Structures are given as structure tokens and as C-alpha cells.
């Protein structure tokens, strides 16, 4: 039995019933996973990779979901259609799951100890309080939870994202499973934390000899973790093989596209023609109110940052979540309250009120991270993109406005037939194009791009980066590009600014900074940034 694969999936299909129709999420896929091996399922959102993971655990919403065909054998036992009692014996005991979202996967009202111990108690029968406690402590230590004795008595909200994910891993490992399913285990985490968690998983896998089914969209994670990879798109496995072979010599077009979709190339060569916008010791402090509304303390989101955005160039602002990079962008455009001088095109604007800012608004625009939240859901594309025109160019007639909207939509690659559609009819990438169109229709000088690619699929990311570069070349735009993703920043930025906890860690020309980082933090960031091809 030893050479029989631990997990054997044959001809598996997953379909969902939706209003009388059948939606096929997974079509006839097959793969094997041996003991101690790591298999990665890679694909973009909607490719059906998470459905596979849930099918292995039989946790799909049956009977809305059903399997038209296929079998899943775990250690010789058929799982498709297995009764719930049998599945409960496997789940958490022999098959562990690390869910995607550590923020919502932990019960907010239970202490860490109780949550981890619950996994033990369920499968180990009677286990004494002291014994459980010891085991929990051991697990937390194993998973690198800092200060585990104190953390056992903490509630989930007291832990950071990375620490929470470690607790989730501890829960999944509690009963030393043979198979660990990790569904996008690091997507919600910052890059440096991502690296730590991945390193931990790798080490644990080696030590415990588990098999691992890794679900991810990130080729970097695959390259670092997996032995073999299955590339999925639209519910089908299009390519399978050892990671190195697939990455070096992709056979299928989709795999080629996926590997080619890592943003490539460098920023456009442009000359330095002076400063467009700058700040001097900029501060954005949010008060934490105590009794009677007096500020008890301050959250220093941005704490004394001086930047200089050069005309026609791209300033990349890099940092992890909570580093204040988005707040800096909002403050620069005077959407967020701030202290300290802000100059735009030679003028001091930090004291202007909302009305006095209006004439400048057409010259500085912003594109937000989440294209699903940044477009008014009840307005058509025409209304969204054209909204600012009559405000800033009252001399334009209705037809002229309309012509401009059409032209700018064409520039971002959207056809005029989409003018009267509503945002929910578009994909994420298309929405981001609409958001970019809204910003550039006013012919701005400065565009703040607040993580414009991080909510998008890989291949779409590369397209958006390409589009941004093209628009910069055509209109001589100046960008402030805010991102946590060094791969994307590298493709666009001329100058770089690394932020941490509201302060500037390092700044300078991008090339120089990436080649020869001066601070430890920058080095750590660079290190953590995953290159897909190892």
C-alpha cells in the first residue's frame, strides 16, 4: 500500500445548481498526491481551485453543489458521497485545513487556547485539561506564535494577521494530519509575514512528513513551496507536472500566459523636469478619544513624511499594510486632513478649504485599490466617467463631454457599447480601467494610484501596468504609485519611498534602492518578494 497515492482524485466534477441552471465549477479533473508531497493548484479567481479543496473535505454546500462525476480516494477510502459521520472522523484529524481568511476563521469570542484545544478534544476523546493545555502550548510553540503562554489567553482580535494565521496552522496541525489543505494561506498577509508563514509551513511539512495540497494564485508561492503543480483555468486542469518543468517549459498557452503575466520591464525613461508636488514634514494623526472627547492618544498614520514628486515621473511608495502609504496619498490630494506643508505646482495648498481646492481637482486625481468599491453602483459608465467634466470644463457642451468620455474609454481599452452599463456588469480589471478613465478624462498632471493592481488577477495586473505605462508616455502623467508589491513597483517606478509605521525608512532613485538597499527593512522586503522561477 505504501506506493499508492495518499489522495487520488479521478475525473472529479463539481457543479452548482443556480436558479434551475447548472454552473460547472470543476470539470473532470484528476490528480494524485503522495505522502510527503506538496501539490499546488494554481489558477486565477473563478478557476475552481477552491471548490476542489472543499470537495476533498466534502464541505461544499450540498445539495446546491453536486458531483456529476468522479471519485476522491483518501488512503483507499472513497470520500465522494461518504456519510457525514465518516467525514467528521477525517476532518481535523487526518485532513487539516488552513482557510483563506484568518480574520474570520477564528471565533472572536473564544480564547486561543480553547479554539486549539477544541480540535484536540474532538478527535482524541477524553483528554485532560492539563494535558490539552500542554499540547496547545507545544503546538503554538511549533508554529512560532510569539509569547505562546500569554497568547493562549488572548482573544483573536488581540493578535495580528500573521499571528492569527499561525494559530490557524496550529489548529490544523493539532492532530498531526496526513494531509494538509492550505487554501490561499498567505493571501491576506503582508509580504514579510507571508514569507515567515510560508517558511514555517515548509519546515513543518518537512518535519511532520505531511502531504500538502496548496491552493494559490501566486506563482511565487508555488515556486517556493510545491513539488508538483496543476494549472487550472475555468474548472479544468490544463497542465500538470513538476514545478520546475512547468515553469521553465510551459506547454499550454494558458500556463505561458500566466507565467508571462508577471509585470515585466522597467519604467519609461524620462528626464527630471522639476518638482510637481511635494510635502514637508507631513503629519496625519488620528486622535483616540478618551473621556469627554479629549484625545487620549494619537494614531500616527503618517508621521513627518517629506516627499518630492518629480514631474512626469513615477514615485513608488512601498510599505506593508498599516504603514500609512494610502493615508499619505489621500493627504497629498487633500482628501484626508493633515498637518504640514503641501505644495502643488509651486503653490502651497495645505491651507485651502474644500471649495478653494476645486480648481485644482482636475489636475490631481486618484485611482483606488478596490474597483468594486470605487465606482458608484447606481451610475452608468457614462455618468461615472463623465461626472467631473461639466464641473471643471463648464464650457463643454453635452456632446463634447460625451465625445471625450468615448475617447478616454477607448484609450483604456473599453468599447463605446459599454457606455450605458453599470459597474456590476464588469470584471475587476474592466472596472479598474473605468476608474482609470474617470481619473484621466480630466487631463490631470498628477495621478495617485493607490494599490491599483492588488485586487486583480495576475494576468490582469500585467495588463493594467502596461496600460498605466502607456498612458504615462502619451500624456506625460506623473504618478504616485502606492503598492505593497515590489514586482509591480519595479515595473513602474522611477523613484522609491519605503514606509513603515508612518515614517520613511528609505527613499531614492528606484534602481539604486533596489540594487543596493541601505536599511534592514528594505532588504527584508526585497527578500520576501517572491520570484516565481526559483
Amino acid at each position, binding site marked *: 500500500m505504501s506506493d499508492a497515492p495518499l489522495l487520488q482524485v479521478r475525473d472529479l466534477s463539481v457543479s452548482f445548481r443556480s*436558479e434551475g441552471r447548472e454552473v460547472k465549477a470543476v470539470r473532470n479533473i484528476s490528480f494524485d498526491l503522495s505522502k510527503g508531497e506538496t501539490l499546488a493548484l494554481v489558477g486565477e479567481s473563478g478557476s475552481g481551485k477552491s471548490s476542489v479543496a472543499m470537495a476533498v473535505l466534502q464541505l461544499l454546500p450540498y445539495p446546491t453543489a453536486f458531483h456529476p462525476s468522479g471519485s476522491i480516494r483518501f488512503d483507499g477510502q472513497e470520500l465522494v458521497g461518504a456519510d457525514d459521520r465518516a467525514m467528521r472522523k477525517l476532518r481535523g484529524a487526518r485532513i487539516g485545513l488552513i482557510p483563506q481568511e484568518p480574520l474570520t476563521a477564528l471565533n472572536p469570542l473564544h480564547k486561543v487556547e480553547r479554539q486549539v484545544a477544541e480540535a484536540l478534544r474532538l478527535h482524541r476523546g477524553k483528554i485532560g485539561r492539563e494535558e490539552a493545555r500542554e499540547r496547545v502550548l507545544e503546538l503554538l510553540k511549533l508554529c512560532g506564535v510569539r509569547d505562546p503562554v500569554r497568547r493562549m489567553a488572548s482573544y483573536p482580535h488581540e493578535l495580528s494577521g500573521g499571528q492569527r494565521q499561525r494559530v490557524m496552522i496550529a489548529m490544523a496541525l493539532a492532530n498531526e494530519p496526513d494531509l494538509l489543505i492550505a487554501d490561499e494561506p498567505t493571501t491576506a498577509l503582508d509580504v514579510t509575514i507571508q514569507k515567515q508563514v510560508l517558511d514555517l509551513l515548509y519546515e513543518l511539512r518537512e518535519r511532520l512528513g505531511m502531504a500538502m495540497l496548496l491552493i494559490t494564485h501566486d506563482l511565487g508561492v508555488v515556486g517556493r513551496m510545491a513539488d508538483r503543480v496543476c494549472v487550472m483555468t475555468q474548472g479544468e486542469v490544463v497542465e500538470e507536472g513538476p514545478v520546475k518543468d512547468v515553469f521553465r517549459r510551459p506547454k499550454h498557452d494558458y500556463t505561458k500566459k500566466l507565467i508571462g503575466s508577471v509585470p515585466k520591464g522597467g519604467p519609461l525613461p524620462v528626464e527630471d523636469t522639476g518638482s510637481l508636488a511635494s510635502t514637508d514634514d507631513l503629519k496625519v494623526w488620528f486622535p483616540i478619544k478618551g473621556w469627554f472627547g479629549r484625545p487620549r492618544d494619537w494614531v500616527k498614520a503618517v508621521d513627518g513624511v517629506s516627499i518630492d514628486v518629480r514631474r512626469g515621473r513615477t514615485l513608488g511608495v512601498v510599505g506593508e499594510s498599516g504603514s500609512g502609504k494610502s493615508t499619505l496619498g*489621500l493627504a497629498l*490630494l487633500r*482628501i484626508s486632513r493633515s498637518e504640514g506643508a503641501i505644495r502643488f505646482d509651486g503653490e502651497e495648498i495645505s491651507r485651502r478649504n*474644500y471649495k478653494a*481646492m*476645486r480648481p485644482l*481637482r*482636475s489636475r*490631481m*486625481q*486618484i485611482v*483606488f*485599490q*478596490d474597483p468594486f*468599491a*470605487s*465606482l*458608484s*453602483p*447606481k*451610475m*452608468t459608465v*457614462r*455618468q461615472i466617467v463623465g*461626472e*467631473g467634466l461639466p*464641473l*471643471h470644463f463648464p464650457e463643454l457642451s*453635452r456632446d463634447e463631454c*460625451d465625445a471625450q468620455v468615448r475617447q478616454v474609454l477607448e484609450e483604456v481599452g473599453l468599447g*463605446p*457599447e459599454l*457606455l*450605458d452599463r*453599470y459597474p*456590476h456588469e464588469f470584471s475587476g480589471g474592466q472596472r479598474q480601467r473605468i*476608474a482609470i478613465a*474617470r481619473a484621466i478624462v*480630466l487631463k490631470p498632471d498628477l495621478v495617485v494610484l493607490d494599490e491599483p493592481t492588488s485586487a486583480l488577477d495576475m494576468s490582469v495586473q500585467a495588463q493594467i501596468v502596461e496600460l498605466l505605462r502607456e498612458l504615462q508616455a502619451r500624456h506625460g502623467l506623473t504618478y504616485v504609485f502606492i503598492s505593497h508589491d515590489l514586482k509591480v513597483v519595479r515595473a513602474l517606478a522611477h523613484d522609491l519611498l519605503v514606509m513603515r509605521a508612518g515614517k520613511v525608512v528609505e527613499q531614492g532613485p528606484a534602481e539604486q534602492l533596489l540594487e543596493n538597499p541601505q536599511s534592514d527593512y528594505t532588504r527584508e522586503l526585497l527578500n520576501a518578494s517572491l520570484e516565481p522561477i526559483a
Partner: protein
Amino acid sequence: MNAAAPPIDAPTPPRGLSRWFGPLGRRRWAVFAANRRGYWSLVVFLVLYALSLGSELIANDKPILMSYRGEIYAPVFAEYPETAFGGDFETEADYRDPYVQRLIEDGDGWAIWPLVPFAHDTIDYEIASPAPTAPDARHIMGTDSQARDVFALTLYGFRLSVTFGLLLTLVSSAIGVVAGAIQGYFGGRTDLLLQRGIEVLQSLPILYLLIILASFIVPGFFSLLGVLLVVSWMTLVPVVRAEFLRARNLDYVRAARALGLGNRKIMFRHILPNAMVATLTFLPFILSTSIVILTALDFLGFGLPRGSPSIGELLNQGKNNLYAPWLGIAGFAVMATMLSLLIFIGEAARDAFDPRKAL
């Protein structure tokens, strides 16, 4: 101002109703019509309300059209003194009086009567037994304790209730939406002050307040409307406020600020349409609550002045004359139909305004 410009490449300009709606409106209407129960409720409700608006032509104690000595009279629309027909009094002719009827007959006249020859306040002196009388050929739904026709009473009562409810709902919702929008959008101190004010108003016991007010305000249609308005405009405030509080920090509102849009435009063009779904879910409930409040006040005798056609008063009579079940049944049937129709319409409307609802 918010309407979409007509699509330039549209092959044929849409006609009729749909031209006023725009593409979104058309879609909403399609979703609404797809909900059969809501759609037919709306049709039935509109027909009933339209009919009741013409109550005077359906149930009245005056002829719609009559002739006297070769001349045409329309007593429903104009007042004629009895002397016009050769009678004795300068007051308006009582066309149901046998004496007046004989006068008209003598003048070679004829008269076209409404379907039901009684208005809501006509007292029938010729009933067979003491009032209230059971349904019979003369009064298809019987008469009440003052010998008035119950069918006429419910017809006029339906009209009055719905009209009152609609007016109260529209005005109080408009005030509530604006107040909630201001609270939610500006937040901070504005929110705090308004919220405390609302809490004070809300903590007043409405019914007692109305009973006290009724003793020194002459109860009439509009004075009652005004008084109820003071206590009912807060219903929507928390809903709209919550929507605005949530939406004011969303990216699309930030994007609108980055465009330099004024506060009013951001509030009413960007946030309000998204707050409308929540608002609309409440509208049918507010409408039915308004109707119920009016009925309750009438039931207790603190509502509209005596002689107004009122379902509440009918229900009260039903309670006082338990041996005459047609009174209570009539009142109940009208209320139940009216409220159910409104809720069904409200449900369909809510679905229609949900952008994620598939056709």
C-alpha cells in the same frame, strides 16, 4: 438631473413610459413586473384607489345627472336650492326626499342615480328594521348604527385612509431622508445634536400626546396630518443615517471628493441612490403604519372629525354592536386588503431596486 442622456447609438428611441425611465428604470420595471404577486397587487390597488377617487359617482345621495323642465342639472358637481325645482326652502335640495322627487317628476324630469344611492353620511330613514340592519338588496353590506350605508362608508373610508397615509408617508419620508442624510454624512457634532433631539421626540408617548393635542387643536384632515408628522418623521432617519455613515468613507465617495464635487451632489447623487433600497424597504411599512395610526385614532374617537368616513369608526361600531358582524367584517376586510396589497407592492419594489437581483 440624474437621468441618463439618451444613448446616441440607440437604434430606436424608446417610446411611452420607458422613455421617462431610462435604461435602469426599464430594468427595474422589468424586475418589478416579474414579481407577479407584487405586480397584480399594484394593479388591483391602483384600480381600487382610482375607483375610490370617483366615489361621488359610485355612491352618492344625489343624482349624477338630472333634467327638470327641459334643463339639465348635475347635482353631484353643483348645489341647487330646493326652490329651483319649485320647492319651499332656500337650502340645497334633498333629492332623496319623496317630496322633492315628486316635484321633479311633476316637472317632466328624469334622473340618473349613482350605482349606490347613498353617500357615506346619508342617513337612510326607510330601513326595514332598527339600525344597524343586515345586508339586503337595498344595502348590500348593511347599514351601521346610524343607518348609513356600509358600502359607501368603506368606499369613502378607503380613499381617505390611503390619501392620508400616502401624504403622511411622502412628507415624513422626505423629511426623514434629508435629516438622516445630513446626520450620516456630516457626522460628528451635527449627528450628536440631531440624534439627541430625535431621542427626545421618540421618547414621547405618541398616543397620549395626540389625545392631549386633540383637546385643544380642532381635529381636521390637515391638522391631524401635521401633528402625526411631528412624531413620525424619524422612522427613516436611522436607516438613512446608517447608510450614509457607511458610504461616506467608501472609495467611490472619496473619488467624488477627489473630483471636487459639492457636498450636496455627493449626498444626493452618489450616496442616496444606494441608500434608497433600504429606504424603499421601509416605505410600505411606513405607509401601513400611517394608515393603522389613523385608524387607531379614529377607533378611539380622537381622529378625524365626526361624520368623516372612517374605517376606525366602523371598527368601533363593530365592537359596540357584536350582534351586527357585518360592521366588523367590513372594516376588517378593507384594512386587511389594503395593508396586504401595500406590503406585496413594497416587496416587489424592494426587489426591483436591488441591483444584484437577476431578472
